[in-house]
């Protein structure tokens, strides 16, 4: 295929440019083979698999609870969701109830993690457009979140916090107040962030009307999460297929509206992420206010042996629907675990969406899709 591409390029006087696997803005080890006429690309073909660790195969040899730490590695920027999706699928397979307090804790940590992940997402997008400072402002806030989560579960990146049947630790004393203090400082800082970059005219010029993905294409390519909502499709698993404690909370689903250009352009996806952080803040406040007392772990048998069956647990991760299709054959190990991740679809649309863009726009497209390599390859 590579050779075929080369031949075609030579005959058309086009240039083949290899972007990645080591490139500052591919966000991990992904490779894009760009066919282009100088700066203007004809198309960019993604080549993935550099981070393929065979997590799905590993799952087949591990007891159900032992697989949870591996799920952290599916999405290291938002590992809570990866834990949560797997735990949910196994709980559905076992048919057990999770205590309310555990569900609330799951929501709180998930939303904290969503803020952390989106901070990286929008910051990295600004960085790819050339503004380095907003990224580090995002990192600064994320550090505080990492500290909070570290205090809760002892890990800063791969949490292994949400387990089958509940969560691993209850809130330590005083963490509630710390989270509230963080939220109080975070909201004004988001406004500062907006003034710094979100309404910056150069950023708007770089993102608006660039890499437009219309709603039909987005649905067809299975885009999920902020990318789907950026194209104006009103779909959020938290609201539409409610799970965990989400039905208890009031929040808006942020949609792209063609804020400064066309509906579904890179700027819409950027804005949707910025707004979602504010919605997450709302959810966390509500969850902290209504946090019920009680157990944090459901009653589980010593050895998890779900009966034969299939379950699909999907959560609205920072990168959209993160689903685990777990197939049980009645033993204590899953027969098959299929992980459905948002970045996988987001990468697959690059070839379609990159036609006719410039190299600088491809960088914007990849950043606006908020692709993360381990989720693609698993």
């Amino acid at each position, binding site marked *: 295929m590579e050779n075929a591409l080369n031949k075609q390029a030579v005959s058309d006087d086009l240039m083949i440019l290899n972007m990645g696997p080591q490139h500052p803005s591919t966000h991990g080890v992904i490779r894009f083979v760009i066919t282009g006429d100088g700066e203007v690309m004809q198309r960019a073909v993604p080549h993935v698999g550099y981070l393929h660790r065979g997590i799905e195969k590993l799952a087949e040899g591990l007891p159900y609870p032992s697989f949870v730490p591996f799920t952290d590695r599916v999405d290291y920027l938002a590992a809570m969701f990866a834990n949560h999706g797997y735990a949910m699928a196994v709980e559905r397979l076992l048919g057990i109830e999770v205590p309310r307090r555990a569900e609330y804790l799951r929501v709180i940590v998930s939303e904290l993690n969503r803020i952390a992940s989106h901070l990286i997402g929008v910051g990295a997008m600004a960085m790819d457009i050339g503004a380095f400072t907003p990224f580090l402002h995002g990192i600064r806030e994320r550090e505080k979140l990492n500290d909070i989560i570290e205090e809760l579960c002892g890990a800063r990146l791969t949490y292994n916090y949400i387990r089958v049947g509940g969560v691993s630790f209850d809130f330590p004393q005083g963490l509630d107040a710390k989270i509230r203090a963080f939220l109080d400082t975070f909201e004004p800082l988001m406004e500062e962030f907006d003034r710094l970059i979100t309404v910056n005219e150069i950023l708007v010029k770089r993102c608006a009307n660039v890499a437009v993905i219309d709603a039909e294409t987005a649905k067809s390519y299975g885009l999920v999460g902020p990318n789907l909502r950026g194209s104006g499709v009103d779909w959020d698993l938290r609201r539409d297929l409610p799970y965990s404690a989400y039905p208890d909370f009031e929040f808006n689903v942020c949609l792209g509206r063609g804020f400064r250009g066309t509906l579904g352009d890179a700027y819409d996806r950027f804005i949707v992420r910025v707004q979602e952080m504010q919605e997450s803040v709302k959810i966390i406040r509500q969850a902290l206010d209504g946090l019920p007392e009680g157990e944090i772990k459901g009653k589980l048998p010593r050895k998890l042996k779900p009966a034969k069956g299939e379950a*699909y647990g999907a959560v609205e991760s920072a990168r959209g629907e993160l689903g685990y299709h777990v197939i049980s054959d009645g033993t204590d190990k899953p027969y098959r675990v299929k992980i459905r991740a948002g970045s996988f679809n987001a990468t697959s649309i690059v070839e379609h969406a990159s036609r006719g863009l410039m190299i600088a726009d491809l960088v914007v497209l990849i950043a606006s899709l908020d692709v993360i390599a381990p989720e693609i390859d698993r």
Partner: protein
Amino acid sequence: MHFDEIVARLRERFGDLVGEADEPDPARPSLLPGVFVRADSVTDVCRFLHDEPAMAFEHLSCITGTDFKDSIHLAYVMTSYVHRQVIALKVKLDRDDPSIRTVEEIWATANWNEREIYDLLGVYFEGHSDLRRLLMPDDWVGHPLRKDYQEQPDYHEIPTTRENPLGKY
């Protein structure tokens, strides 16, 4: 629309192309409901599920390929945005020569999902526009997600296994 009704509609439309459907389990209400169809009818059924307004499964969440030792099952997990529902459409394939029509024309995302299954399970998708390995290198031997998969001892003279460094202590 309830899953039973979907199955009923499918049976009404496709007759005996539709196979057995999952029975609801009262102890486990949130299992993924699935229905088997004949492999050669998969594009028609998917087209029906996608286009029919009462179903409108516009979102193909994923395609799960599983090696069941006697056969390979594909499960098309699909979501309906309008009706807020997730179901699985399943097909059973011959393990020695698994082959099925692609559903790429219905959901563009099937392109990569099918490439992944071709890569990891060796299922051939007829009519696929770009059937190459996705995750493994192009010259990899074997399909790792098959249950009887044996890794080659080396890949381009790089050993694929190594001694356990803790073994000698």
